[in-house]
């Protein structure tokens, strides 16, 4: 007890203590909702919960001292932006109890979360928002050590800087290879935005170089827009090798920076390997991930299909057509918060309606987008027909410029909503 009191600030501590003392958690005046993960999903959810019901005791568990945002991290790789612009502190969370620890286990029956210092905290409802884990067991040769040579840069931070520095050090005339995974994965247009911005860097700084995308898919998000822009802006620079042409990488050798496909092998000067992914580890140990590695959820409440009173939002969740994006994570988190706030007060949650909009930069001042509107249907989050879609294939440069500006302002708005 004393060690936990020391850990947990103010209101959260007394609630945790009260929860311990009284097993009848449902009858509490200040029900305790615990959120694991302070990313776009978890931080949004904790904030929305407190906004919806000031009398909820909301605790956010996150081990990092700062959040490094992935959206726009591709611009960092291309030298267009500093990593500082991606960094957000956790000091503006008001009366949300912030615990700087990692959650290591969940006892779904007793409704307790165990932290990495051995203490635990009780909940009436738990929201898991751990994002993704990169799978270091899925691609032969690609483990954590290999990622130090062939960076994934699919979590922003040191990996982003590693890939940026490799690009900066590469001599002109080098070959950059980016390998993209099969669906589903974090940020479907992300690899192609990355290819675009790396191509922009190569074109302006190392024009004799080449970029090859080895893809485990035959189609990708906003494909026609990307390909048209590549022909226009980067002719001959980017080569996309789809699955059907032998694009799927089956093995890598970090020592020689070689990527092996079903059709042959490619030697790279720089290899950016984006491996397959799954829900963050805590989701597996809580028993909310299924055999695919992702967490099936109810589309109205985001409650796990596998464990009661545990909700999953953001990249870790899977439940229909919504892509794994920061925009989706934030929208899902707010819908989940509304449902959780209703459920803890024994009210019926309302049917949510969600939006996703993902911008991609193809070059500075050249933005494109894909949007969708989603609602529950047949137990999944389904796209509302007749809505959504991509930017037009033909558009004047003023429209691309406007979308690039909107992309930046979207990032500013959402990060200020999520991190304060």
């Amino acid at each position: 007890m004393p060690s936990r009191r020391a850990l947990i600030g103010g209101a959260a501590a007394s609630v945790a203590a009260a929860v311990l003392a009284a097993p009848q958690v449902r009858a509490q005046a200040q029900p305790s909702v615990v959120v694991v993960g302070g990313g776009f999903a978890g931080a949004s959810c904790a904030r929305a919960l407190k906004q919806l019901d000031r009398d909820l005791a909301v605790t956010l568990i996150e081990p990092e001292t700062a959040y490094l945002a992935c959206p726009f991290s591709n611009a960092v790789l291309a030298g267009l932006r500093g990593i500082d612009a991606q960094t957000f502190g956790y000091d503006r969370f008001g009366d949300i109890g912030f615990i700087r620890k990692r959650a290591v286990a969940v006892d779904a029956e007793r409704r307790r979360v165990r932290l990495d210092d051995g203490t635990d905290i009780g909940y009436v409802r738990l929201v898991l928002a751990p994002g993704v884990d990169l799978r270091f067991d899925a691609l032969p040769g690609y483990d954590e050590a290999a990622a130090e040579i062939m960076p994934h840069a699919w979590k922003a931070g040191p990996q982003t800087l590693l890939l940026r520095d490799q690009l900066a050090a590469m001599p002109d005339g080098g070959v950059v290879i980016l390998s993209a995974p099969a669906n589903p994965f974090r940020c479907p247009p992300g690899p192609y935005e990355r290819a675009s911005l790396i191509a922009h860097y190569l074109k302006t700084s190392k024009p004799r170089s080449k970029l090859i995308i080895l893809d485990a898919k035959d189609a990708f998000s906003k494909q026609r827009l990307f390909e048209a822009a590549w022909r226009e802006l980067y002719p001959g620079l980017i080569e996309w090798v789809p699955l059907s042409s032998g694009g799927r990488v089956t093995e890598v050798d970090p020592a020689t920076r070689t990527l092996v496909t079903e059709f042959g092998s490619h030697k790279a000067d720089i290899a950016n390997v984006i491996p397959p992914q799954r829900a963050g580890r805590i989701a597996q140990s809580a028993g909310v991930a299924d055999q695919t590695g992702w967490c099936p959820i109810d589309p109205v409440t985001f409650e796990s299909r596998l464990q009661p009173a545990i909700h999953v939002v953001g990249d870790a969740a899977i439940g229909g057509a919504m892509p794994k994006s920061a925009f989706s994570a934030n929208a899902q988190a707010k819908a989940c918060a509304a449902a959780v706030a209703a459920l803890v007060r024994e009210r019926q949650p309302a049917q949510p309606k969600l939006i996703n909009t993902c911008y991609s930069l193809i070059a500075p001042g050249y933005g494109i987008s894909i949007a969708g509107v989603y609602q529950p249907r047949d137990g999944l989050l389904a796209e509302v027909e007749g809505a959504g879609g991509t930017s037009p294939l033909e558009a004047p440069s003023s429209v691309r410029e406007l979308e690039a500006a909107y992309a930046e302002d979207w990032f500013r708005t959402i990060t200020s909503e999520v991190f304060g």
Partner: protein
Amino acid sequence: MTSHDMMRPKNRRGRSFAPVLVAALAASAPTWAGAAPGAAACTGCHGPAALGSAIPSLDGHAADDIVAQMQAFRSGEREATVMDRIARGYTEEETRAIAEWLAKPEAARHAQP
């Protein structure tokens, strides 16, 4: 599973019975988010005016104004980069509920009923 099943075929025109059911469901749910399903998603892009974003803030607009703009986006009458694609996902009734919620002063939007 839900009333939304019925929405599917006619949803493009927003003219099935489903919107009425959605509105009824929403009315029975007491939280603000329940009062306007979908409203929470808007603020991902549309922040407070003080941010000075190129994406306009929705603060301080009359409900009728928001409804009219959404209609103009939906019909294509008002040019857009992305709002036309988003507006087509909302029925007239849903738009009205969202607009009315957005038109409330900040404090009222977050207050418990």
